[in-house]
């Protein structure tokens, strides 16, 4: 597509969500009913939870030491696991998107596996990899590195389930962007690393950003793998979801209040990521 064509398309009313005109939408009217039921299905449980919140006790409940520890731990570990996802996911997405090689489909399938795997299965798999008796864990233990029951274990569990989100999101952006700009940059004298830094990454920045936000959100919600693999100790491995799970046993009000807190953080994070749905790299 030529730049001039792109410019004219950007000016058309359909391209801008805030534009004044309304084009033909192609949505049959009856479709709105199931769509509304679907929306309700997602929103009603949240409303139900809101109704259950003990507002009088809300502030003390969410600001208790255990709650704040859990929230702080969740934010820190999610940030760390997002960094891990970026460090390994960006190269992985580049390799998957740019160079066809033998076994690529298989590799992609494996990278995406945690998306469909029950988290507890992920936890068990991690246990047999990084646990004390695990594949790598034994060697690591000899080297004096203990992962089990540490915050590192939480980060690993989160990164394991969050990595596919980054890879999928970035690989899609890379494929959409194509490699023609990279070719041009190379003929202008830019080496592969310069091309990556100055052309490829800036071009896919929206995809990269939304992938990172999704990874963060997924890390924030991680529960099963952490429970199985990392344990649960206040301030060390007990993240917000684990704290909620535990509080549910003892104090339902606290569990509801913390759930609401987690929902609020998740909504903020996902909201940030989807603020500009139209912003995508045109190729």
């Amino acid at each position, binding site marked *: 597509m*030529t*730049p001039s064509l792109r410019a004219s398309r950007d000016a058309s009313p359909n391209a801008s969500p805030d534009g004044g005109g309304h084009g033909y939408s192609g949505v049959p009217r009856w479709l709105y009913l199931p769509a509304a039921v679907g929306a309700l299905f997602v929103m009603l449980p949240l409303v139900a939870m809101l109704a259950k919140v003990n507002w009088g006790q809300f502030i003390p409940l969410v600001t208790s030491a255990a709650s704040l520890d859990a929230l702080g731990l969740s934010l820190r570990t999610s940030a760390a696991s997002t960094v891990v996802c970026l460090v390994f996911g960006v190269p992985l997405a580049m390799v998957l998107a740019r160079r066809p090689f033998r076994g690529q489909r298989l590799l992609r399938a494996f990278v995406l596996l945690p998306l469909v795997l029950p988290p507890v299965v992920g936890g068990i798999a991690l246990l047999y990899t990084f646990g004390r008796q695990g594949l790598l864990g034994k060697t690591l233990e000899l080297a004096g590195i203990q992962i089990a029951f540490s915050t590192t274990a939480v980060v690993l569990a989160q990164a394991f389930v969050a990595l596919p989100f980054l890879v999928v999101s970035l690989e899609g952006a890379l494929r959409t962007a194509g490699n*023609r700009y990279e070719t041009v940059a190379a*003929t*202008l004298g830019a080496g592969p690393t310069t091309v990556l830094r100055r052309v490829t990454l*800036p071009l896919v920045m929206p995809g990269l950003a939304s992938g990172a936000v999704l990874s963060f959100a997924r890390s924030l919600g991680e529960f099963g793998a952490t429970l199985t693999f990392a344990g649960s100790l206040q301030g060390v491995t007990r993240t917000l979801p684990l704290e909620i799970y535990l509080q549910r046993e003892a104090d339902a009000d606290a569990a509801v209040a913390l759930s609401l807190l987690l929902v609020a953080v998740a909504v903020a994070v996902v909201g940030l990521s989807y603020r500009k749905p139209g912003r995508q790299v045109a190729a």
Partner: protein
Amino acid sequence: MTFRMTALVHGRLDADFTVAPGETVAVLGPNGAGKSTLLAVAAGLLKPDAGSARLGDKVLFERDGGKHGWVPPRWVPPHLRGVALLAQEALLFPHLSVLDNVAFAPRTAGQSRAESRETARRWLAEVDALDLAARRPGQLSGGQAQRVAVARALAAEPELLLLDEPMAALDIHGAPQLRRVLKRVLAGRSAVIVTHEVLDALMLADRIVVLEGGRIVEEGPVREVLGRPRSAFAAGLAGLNLLAGTVTAEGLLVSGFGGLSGTALSGMFDGEAAAGEPGVAAFPPSAVSVFPELPHGSPRNCLPVVITELEPHAGGIRVRAGELAADITPAASAELGLEPGMAVFFVVKSAEVQVYGA
């Protein structure tokens, strides 16, 4: 700096190609002739199966394809070649301003941000686009974007500039302006321009190379190739009818043109052709008259043909018969009742036919 390349890409290209220092070479040929492949190999975007290339003293690649024993293959990646490529589409980096697009290569080469922008301004001025410096690529017309792309390529100070149909995607306003800019900036620069337009070759190139089926079928100075075309494609570019055969004392004995094979043409020689050697006869469509029957007692050349198409052409009618064409007035066409499928005679005076060695 001389660019010399021999490249074999199975099924796509088998050519020996040279660009003299400061020379602009126009590469022409039908679709699929291997023009873009030639540029891709030169730019380092495609590895040939065999061949070698040098730019000045620098070896760009060397692969013997197993012909002469084992020679370690050499391959210089695109970014180290000093070869810039300008494509049909401008492909300006959408995340950078026009100025920073042009500053890309100098910045990559190690200039500071300020220096590189200064360099970029100079090149933008060179392509009459300094006023666009602050814009985003999305805010440019096709012609503007392509001029900026030219500036961006030149800012890399390439030793060889490759242009792949740079005018093809432009509208009727953008193309002439870009052509003017290119005429100015390509002067004295080693460059290769792939084009469909004979006008580009005329205005911008010193030499023409005609590619067909991946091979060079004709090459030479622009005036030579367009004035005395030896290939059907070059004759088409030059707007001439071309028949090939063997040179005779009077002109040419046509061979290999279907029903015309064996026809003797008389024509004018310009010295070089010796009887018995392969040669061609060229004549413009405007010199051809159309007769429904064989005219009597004429000293002229008569070619029995079957009309394949009639089409409008510069205020008249072009009558096509296979690879030959005749330009006549609409009145004459109506009088003769011409239509495709009709057998007629194309008649041309000897004085209008140029015969020369192939």
